[in-house]
């Protein structure tokens, strides 16, 4: 049996994580795979830490990824990458947005995040998704930039991703989102 692929996505409420995991699930489903996607709605939306688990393969049971089993750990925010780093599998890939969002209740961003990340995930692909989203034309496209970045590490064709994006995002934003995806895909390959 083909083994299950586990993609763990983290970030901060409001960054558009759920749309990214939705698009990934669409792509996997279109390939005829069994797919389970899990996240928790509610409180977390209010600027809290948010995670989404996506699992796909021939037959998937649990909708959540177990610790040390994520093939791909994607974080839309740096602290959030470190918070969930124990989910990454020993040979797993880490893709991180360089953005810093100060948690509520703190007046400044903690100083030891970069150091912690380089220790726990020395090979992480770090990209400046906010800058690329702005380049694409909208700061809110961080999520499609990240989608492009991590799409390099999954075996779906570029066309399939684009189709799924077109089907999900509001018609007026398709162009910006496709551009954001392309910029992310290029940056994340490195």
């Amino acid at each position, binding site marked *: 049996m083909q083994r299950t692929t586990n993609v763990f996505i983290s970030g901060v409420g409001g960054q558009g994580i759920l749309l990214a995991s939705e698009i990934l699930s669409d792509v996997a*489903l279109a390939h005829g795979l069994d*797919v389970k*996607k899990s996240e928790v709605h509610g409180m977390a939306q209010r600027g809290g830490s948010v995670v989404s688990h996506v699992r796909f393969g021939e037959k998937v049971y649990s*909708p959540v990824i177990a610790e040390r089993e994520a093939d791909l750990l994607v974080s839309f925010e740096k602290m959030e990458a470190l918070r969930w780093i124990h989910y990454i599998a020993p040979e797993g890939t880490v893709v991180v947005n360089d953005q810093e969002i100060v948690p509520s209740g703190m*007046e400044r961003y903690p100083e030891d995040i970069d150091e912690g990340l380089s220790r726990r995930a020395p090979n992480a692909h770090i990209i400046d998704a906010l800058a690329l989203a702005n380049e694409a034309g909208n700061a809110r496209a961080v999520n499609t930039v990240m989608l492009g970045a991590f799409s390099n590490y999954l075996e779906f064709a570029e066309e399939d991703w684009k189709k799924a994006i077109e089907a999900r995002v509001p018609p007026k934003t398709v162009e910006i989102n496709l551009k954001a995806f392309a910029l992310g895909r290029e940056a994340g390959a490195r």
Partner: protein
Amino acid sequence: MRVLLSGNEAVARGCYEHGVKVATAYPGTPSTEILENIVRYKDDIYCQWSPNEKVAFEVAMGAAFGGVRTMVAMKHVGLNVAADPLMTSTSVGGDGGFVIVTGDDPGMHSSQNEQDNRYYAKFAKIPLVEPSDSQEVKDYVGAAFEISERFGTPVLFRLTTRLCHAKTPVELGERTEVERKEYEKDTTLRVVIPAHARRLHVKVEGRLKEIAKFAETSPLNRVEEGDPSVGVISSGIAYQYARDAFPDATFLKLGLSFPFPIELARKFCARFETVYIVEENEPFVEEQLRYAGITNVVGKEKVPLCGELNQSIVARSFGGGEEPDRAAVAPRPPVLCPGCPHRSTFFTLNRLGIGATSDIGCYTLGVMPPLNGIDTTICMGASIGNALGFEKAIGRDFAKKMVAVIGDSTFVHSGMTGLADAAYNKGATTVIILDNSITAMTGHQDHPGTGMTLMGEPTTKLDYIALAKSMGVKDARRVDAFDMEAVKVAIKDATDNPETSLLVMEGPCALMVRKTWTKAFVVDTEKCTACGMCLRLGCPAISRDEDGKAVIDPLFCVGEVCGMCAQVCPVECISAPAKA
């Protein structure tokens, strides 16, 4: 067609396909999206938000009496509110099928407790259906209605957060209409005077035995053959975790777990030396096995009772794998959004040194630093009674130091009776309704104070001031939540008033008025003295730069619709960009 549906979407789809005609609910995470999805089928299903779960339950019960398939949905603690009708709804379902959906919240992602509502099935003596993924959710909705109608009983349909919110593939089907049964008056069934209730109790006990027999062979309870030396019993989402933890084991998977199919379980357990029982939270299945004298089982002595499970926790419980090595990272709790109308009340209470008995909603986040505005939060509606109780214990003057804070949806849910109590029993209580004109915390649902129905029709709108006046609260007034000075004056006046007062802090939820957001406010760094007053608002858009001066993140600030920080800055160095 095969699509990805969340468990909540699958309940809605199941109701549609299986001929449901009436659906009611009060919102509550994780079950809210059930009704939000049912409204997509509003041509076929009448659906409504009720002011609380008890009313939702009673409306649904009436619809079932009226002969149509009916579903009522709520979160786990909502069933406490509806427990009174639940316990006596013994014969509902014999007319139109009656299914009660409960969304339990193991891990308390968005709840105040971790109660396991499977016990309600046992307590109310009604069957319990537990699906394990969205396809089963949709299919079992149909099965639940058949059980309900066949045995003339309500059915409890239990979901948990992971089932409600996880999306898994579902094969869609067509709607099958179920004809309404003619209503016939029968007081022996529907009027529970003691003479009737005594007979009904005997009937319910007999019916349970019948359903237990049915459960023994129901396809909802099945054995999945595997390694003949490892036996596992599980149900609900825990089944999926157990499947991943024991990929090759033989399973007894329970989908109709009360009344318990004890002979099926006895036969299953006899095949193994030890049987593992994997369930989240309480030992509901395990207790029934042990009560029947089946003792070669291992369950809660190994599997944690508190918190949510996953496959690695299950594996670790039985000796597989180690604790993961977590990095120490500062927490990132949820907070009131930038531009939230609730912020002014908590900031002001904090400045005036006044505490608050609070309630449940977005505003509960006012407990977080730097607002630190809340003393108590227990359950929906408790704030007003709690405040009155404090005053009765400590003395009238204490009401100057402790106000009750409650959201608009919560006030309609269960605060109105509290306000009547405060007025009736001569409290000096100050009640503050934080009226953002929506049920925000659960994702923005209408309620009787918003003037709109679930099905999108304009309707009457509850007038809190007129209501309070009719209860005898003379000092009742509206306040603009974005006017910091007005908020301060109103709170001072109300707490000084020796009688019950009501303040309605009006300001829309920031997320409901996105179209009115303007460019971010800016800080004139030259003038800023780094005094930190604006930071005390706890607005996520404001932080300090290297010199300790305030900076506003232009991505987060909502601009002129808020402006609270500009009003509290003592040197007036925060302003809208045009004026800067």
